[in-house]
């Protein structure tokens, strides 16, 4: 069930589909058409480069030639470098080299095309291949370790949201919200309001937080899930086991300065679980809301308390 969403005065709401997600924009009404075209074009370009499901994408060609140096364009280089830095910064809890595990688990096509699948073949190998990746920025060349594959899905979407705000800013737009699936970032404030009231997570009656600046990202196991044989699967793979993370959490939402950082934080916190995840995020200086499997909500760091819930 979709919740009722308001459109602040003076803004226009636009939607389109990209990177496997519904993209939602709130833009000044007078700029809405041009700005939507610019953001839609940006998402199309990023998807063309970074999709794991398009054989002609730069990422697919890189994965197909794992073990050999492959020339990469600026978008792929940026995304790979960001993902590797996140892997280093989180001790490998964020691991962009789990592409083969996702394929083994059946996530080898756009999520909408996954039906019930036969049982998995092959054993899980877990992560860590990112440590052997080589990026030569000056030469514009990336080498993925042999027998490995990159998956940049989550971080790519977060970075596309951040890049969209940059494009809107360059068009002279001072007020905007860009949301793609679980990733959302804002620019300025809605006219006459002190904050962007954002409903957090998959519950249509969940908490509504007053975001003034920055970004939010929600990661969870509720939406992108499927069955493989008799086993329920989801897309957040624990690099320690090579299997979907079983962490006792339903979802995690992180507030950070950029969507890229919020996305990384939400992913690693989900994998780390309700005991270690909050300590990790609090020390990293981000705010977060954990929702445990039984439904308990745990606010961490500078996450707002006593917020209203959507009707």
């Amino acid at each position, binding site marked *: 069930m979709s*919740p*009722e*969403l*308001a459109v602040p005065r003076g803004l226009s709401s636009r939607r389109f589909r990209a990177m496997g*997600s519904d993209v*939602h924009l*709130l833009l000044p009404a007078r700029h809405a058409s041009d700005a939507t075209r610019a953001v839609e074009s940006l998402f199309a370009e990023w998807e063309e480069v970074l999709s794991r499901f398009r054989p002609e994408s730069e990422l697919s060609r890189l994965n197909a030639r794992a073990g050999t140096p492959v020339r990469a364009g600026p978008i792929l280089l940026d995304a790979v470098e*960001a993902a590797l*830095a996140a892997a*280093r*910064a*989180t*001790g490998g*809890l964020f691991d962009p080299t789990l592409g083969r595990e996702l394929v083994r688990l059946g996530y080898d096509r756009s999520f909408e095309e996954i039906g019930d699948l036969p049982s998995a073949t092959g054993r*899980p190998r*877990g992560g*860590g291949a990112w440590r052997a990746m080589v990026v030569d920025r000056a030469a514009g060349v990336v080498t993925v370790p042999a027998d490995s594959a990159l998956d940049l899905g*989550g971080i790519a*979407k977060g970075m596309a949201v951040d890049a969209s705000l940059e494009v809107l800013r360059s068009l002279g737009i001072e007020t905007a*919200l860009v*949301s*793609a699936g*679980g990733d959302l970032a804002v620019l300025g404030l*809605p006219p006459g309001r*002190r*904050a962007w*009231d*954002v*409903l957090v*997570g*998959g519950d249509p009656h969940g908490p*509504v937080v*007053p*975001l003034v*600046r*920055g970004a939010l*990202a929600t*990661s*969870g196991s509720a939406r*992108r899930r499927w069955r493989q044989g008799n086993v329920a699967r989801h897309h957040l793979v624990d690099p*320690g*086991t090579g*299997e979907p993370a079983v962490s006792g959490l339903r*979802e995690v939402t992180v*507030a*950070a*300065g950029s969507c890229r*950082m919020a996305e990384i934080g939400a992913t690693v916190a989900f994998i780390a679980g309700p005991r*270690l995840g909050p*300590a*990790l995020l609090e*020390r*990293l*200086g*981000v*705010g977060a809301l954990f929702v445990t499997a039984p439904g308990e909500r745990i606010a961490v760091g*500078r*996450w*707002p308390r006593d917020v209203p819930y*959507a009707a």
Partner: protein
Amino acid sequence: MAPVDARDQTRRRQERRLGRLRRRAMLGSALAFAAFLGLAAQHAVGSGKRAAAPTTPPVARPAAYFDQQGDAFAFDDGSSEPPLPPVAQTNVS
């Protein structure tokens, strides 16, 4: 010779144990990194407005990938506005 089922169970137990160990090692590494960030932030606070001295962290350069500035994101902390329907939803990715 052990039956196939017993061998499978043993292998699965070993794989689970290995997975737990790897996960613990990663969490330890991540927490060590987080502790470093905490120390860097304390240093910055203790030295007035001077930025923390550039240091080589044990795992990575922190500044580029996690927020350390308190104003990088913000929530309104005392709105007197009447509640409205939300304007957007993060959903779940």
